[in-house]
């Protein structure tokens, strides 16, 4: 079976991204069954050639999985004619990962923190909260359909 994931790794200065040594891009369909493979591919390329602690690897895997699930389920509503784009800019000390969907976007400021005692029994609403807690910086584009997650290597 042909993999539906389209991976491109460019090991040269990335155009328009100062100081970026390697650019990794991945395009995947809006299918949650592709998430695990996409996470493994992007994580492997983000950490290649660097000594990474188990915790850095773990955090990268979790936030990638979260961002891809959000993009596929909420952004693209699992529509198979829509795609999710991953762009990882790899610097010597920082990894910047952008995950972009084709949805209308959302207001990240409107998402409540799900840790109040009366919310603990809720089964959803922890994705963005976890991302914010596990990386060193989070940014969104104006439309709200692209998240940038910044993770220091050490």
């Amino acid at each position, binding site marked *: 079976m042909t993999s539906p994931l389209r991976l491109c790794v460019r090991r040269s200065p990335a155009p328009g991204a100062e100081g970026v040594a390697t650019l990794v891009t991945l395009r995947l369909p809006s299918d949650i069954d592709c998430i695990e493979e996409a996470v493994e591919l992007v994580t492997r390329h983000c950490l290649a050639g660097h000594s990474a602690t188990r915790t850095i690897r*773990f*955090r990268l*895997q979790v936030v990638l999985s979260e961002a891809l*699930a959000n993009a596929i389920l909420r952004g693209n509503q699992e529509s198979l004619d829509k795609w999710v784009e991953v762009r990882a800019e790899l610097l010597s000390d920082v990894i910047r990962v952008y995950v972009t969907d084709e949805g209308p976007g959302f207001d990240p400021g409107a998402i409540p923190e799900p*840790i109040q005692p009366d919310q603990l029994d809720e089964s959803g609403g*922890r994705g963005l909260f*976890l991302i914010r807690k596990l990386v060193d910086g989070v940014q969104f584009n104006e439309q709200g359909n692209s998240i940038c997650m910044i993770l220091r290597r050490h």
Partner: protein
Amino acid sequence: MGFSQTKDQSGVAVLQVEGQLIVGNRQELKDLVQAALERGERRILIDFSRTGYIDSSGLGALVSISKRIRESGGELRLSGLNEDLRSLFELTKLDTLFAIADTPQQALASF
């Protein structure tokens, strides 16, 4: 990525998460627990000694499972969380919702 299911000699249903517990397989775990409840199992242990990572959907599934077991008059224990996995429960305060043991043996002894 999958689950293995065994029964302890004292009758506890033990589910082991092998690989990830994420949006793509959370329903499978919920179905396994539901099937165990329908068989009359009331003491259930979910072990994470062989788990890589869990996402928020996986955590949400565990919350749903916990509620379902409670409503059935059963008990749930979790075990085998490494430092990184445990941090997810602490960040989300879910460590206050679950009975978590370091090892499966400790969890089994606590029923």
